[in-house]
């Protein structure tokens, strides 16, 4: 039976606990959200001693199932004030799973000024005071830990942003290449910083490994599942070639590419930042168009992006980051955006929240539109040095808007709205409004069906069918986020009938269970209701399930679309 590791920073103790029976069938998001809802007082201060930081690998993490290496991190978010689950690749999830660790719960808060590192091994978890790496950023932390523990050790760390407890701070996770991926959204790095934990290392030497209840059944189902991922044009061909950034031109063409702080749906400079241009640039400079964020990923949507001289600049360079600093801030130099991506990774700040914050900052006149060099200076010299301006920007779009008196602030539950305009892609607006996470495209990715013709077609500009689409996808996503699977398995799952049953068969073969499709849907529903229940207890109401006012009043080009759902129509989302 997998175990729960518990670390208490108040009294500097650790415990290994048996997994309670009611948590045995849970993993990933289902487990982090269940634990947060059970153990964190909803009204607590997110940066106080009563918040808890929970890490959990998915139900299939650590197995040979393709794309199953995702880690969930949960807490009460200092950005939204509600529950948060943030999902990441890297090596940690598979290491936790092989060590038989169902979840790691970090709670309490030290009384003194010391910082700590947590060291997870097959014997449990140890708390060690840390001096050398305090004040260092992520790349230095990764390098130092590699020196101490070798290349195989897993790392979860915070940069100086997490130490400053700014609400765009993320938790960075070592990837198989020795670079990093991010628990980006919701300011979970600030929660880790509030507990004065600089990093968590994981060593899996001597780990018990995964015991499959039915290895033959698992192997057969795994083969079907992997074939579905490889056969689908999006996961098998499109994502590996162009990465997620193929979306720039698609959303531009559809009029859903938020531009200049959400004042237009099209960006004249789209060709200079699009996936096609990026692909050519990567190939010409000897980078890698294909790259996986975790071992066992067959989609390989990540990439290695080199600078003009052919030296490594960044990886995991995603559409949302490129959209955010590109179209939304009208910066057309992809190298400036890649440099910013690397700096944000190093400081440990969310590249979506920060990019949306820069859009609001440009509207406020803090820096000129499209000024990539000044954006880089602010990242290095203001955010990096923790000046007042830097802390405002690294506290997210809402903070910038409040500080400078701006009304066009694209946030829901104070979390920055990503890369798809909800006026011209209405299904994603329902997701932004209703997900307990605050504006989050991954919570119910209606772009698949609104724009990409995956899983059928629902007209992006009409209201019909959007609430049902978002609801079905949010339920499915909550379930997938609990398996440790990458959300991109949803593309084949929506179109290839064998895909989802094969995933359920793998779970059954792993645990000796007899789950059906209905059980998985029920799990997704329960997760969403649990998360919403936490938010309500924390003081949120249906009024928090609303898009900013300007989406109603300001039509967006080229379709002159506005957000035209009534409150009752939005609230009907929760009728399940």
């Amino acid at each position, binding site marked *: 039976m997998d175990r729960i590791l518990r670390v208490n920073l108040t009294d500097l103790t650790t415990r290994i606990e048996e997994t309670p029976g009611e948590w045995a069938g849970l993993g990933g998001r289902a487990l982090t959200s269940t634990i947060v809802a059970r153990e964190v007082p909803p009204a607590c201060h997110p940066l106080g001693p009563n918040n808890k930081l929970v890490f959990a690998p998915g139900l299939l993490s650590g197995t040979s199932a393709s794309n199953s290496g995702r880690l969930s991190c949960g807490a009460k978010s200092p950005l939204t004030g509600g529950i948060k689950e943030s999902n990441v690749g890297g090596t940690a999830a598979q290491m936790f799973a092989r060590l038989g660790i169902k979840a790691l719960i970090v709670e309490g808060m030290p009384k003194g000024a010391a910082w700590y590192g947590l060291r997870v091994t097959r014997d449990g978890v140890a708390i060690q005071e840390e001096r050398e790496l305090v004040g260092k950023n992520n790349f230095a932390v990764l390098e130092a830990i590699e020196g101490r523990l070798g290349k195989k050790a897993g790392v979860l760390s915070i940069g100086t942003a997490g130490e400053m407890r700014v609400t765009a701070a993320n938790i960075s996770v070592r990837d198989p290449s020795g670079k990093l991926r991010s628990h980006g959204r919701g300011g979970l790095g600030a929660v880790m910083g509030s507990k004065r934990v600089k990093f968590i290392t994981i060593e899996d030497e001597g780990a018990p490994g995964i015991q499959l209840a039915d290895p033959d059944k698992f192997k057969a189902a795994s083969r079907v599942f992997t074939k579905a991922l490889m056969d689908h044009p999006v996961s098998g061909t499109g*994502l590996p*070639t162009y990465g*997620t950034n193929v979306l720039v031109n698609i959303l531009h063409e559809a009029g859903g590419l938020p531009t200049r702080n959400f004042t237009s749906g099209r960006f004249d400079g789209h060709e200079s930042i699009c996936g096609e241009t990026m692909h050519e640039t990567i190939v010409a400079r000897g980078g890698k168009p294909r790259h996986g964020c975790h071992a066992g990923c067959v989609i390989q949507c990540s990439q290695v992006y080199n600078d003009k001289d052919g030296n490594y600049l960044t990886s995991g360079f995603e559409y949302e980051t490129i959209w955010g600093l590109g179209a939304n801030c009208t910066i057309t130099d992809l190298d400036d955006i890649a440099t910013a991506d690397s700096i944000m990774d190093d400081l440990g700040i969310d590249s979506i929240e920060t990019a949306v914050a820069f859009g609001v900052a440009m509207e406020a006149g803090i820096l000129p539109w499209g000024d990539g060099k000044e954006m880089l200076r602010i990242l290095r010299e203001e955010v990096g040095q923790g000046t007042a301006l830097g802390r405002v920007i690294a506290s997210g779009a809402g903070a910038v808007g409040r500080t400078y008196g701006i009304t066009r602030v694209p946030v829901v539950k104070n979390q920055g709205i990503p890369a798809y305009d909800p006026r011209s892609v209405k299904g994603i607006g329902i997701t932004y409004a209703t997900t307990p996470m605050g504006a989050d495209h991954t919570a119910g990715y209606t772009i698949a069906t609104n724009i990409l*013709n*995956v899983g059928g077609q629902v*007209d992006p500009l009409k209201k019909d069918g959007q609430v049902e689409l978002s609801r079905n996808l949010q339920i499915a996503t909550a379930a997938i986020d609990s398996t440790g699977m990458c*959300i991109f398995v949803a593309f084949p799952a929506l179109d290839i009938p064998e895909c989802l049953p094969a995933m359920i068969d793998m779970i059954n073969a792993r645990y000796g269970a007899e789950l059906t499709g209905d059980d998985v849907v029920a799990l997704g529903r329960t997760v969403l209701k649990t998360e919403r229940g936490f938010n309500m207890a924390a003081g949120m109401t249906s009024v928090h399930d609303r898009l900013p006012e300007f989406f109603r009043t300001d039509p967006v080009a080229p379709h002159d679309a506005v957000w035209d759902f009534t409150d009752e129509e939005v609230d009907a989302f929760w009728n399940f």
Partner: protein
Amino acid sequence: MIVTVKLFAHFRNGRFKEAEKAFPDGVDCLHVIQSLEFTARDMGIVMVNGLHAALDRPLEDRDILALFPLVGGG
């Protein structure tokens, strides 16, 4: 009539990004697609003037036809 055709992702390989092409009045999207030696099965997303369009949609002078293979991201 003149139709602006835009190609994306690997559709651009060996073809073009954007071109103005002359067609007889009233041809539909599929006609243009086939004239470029694509098949209907190659198409992921077809948009006319930024709106999703069916393959049998007739085109008008100065329409912008955007053709994408089935790709995606997130």
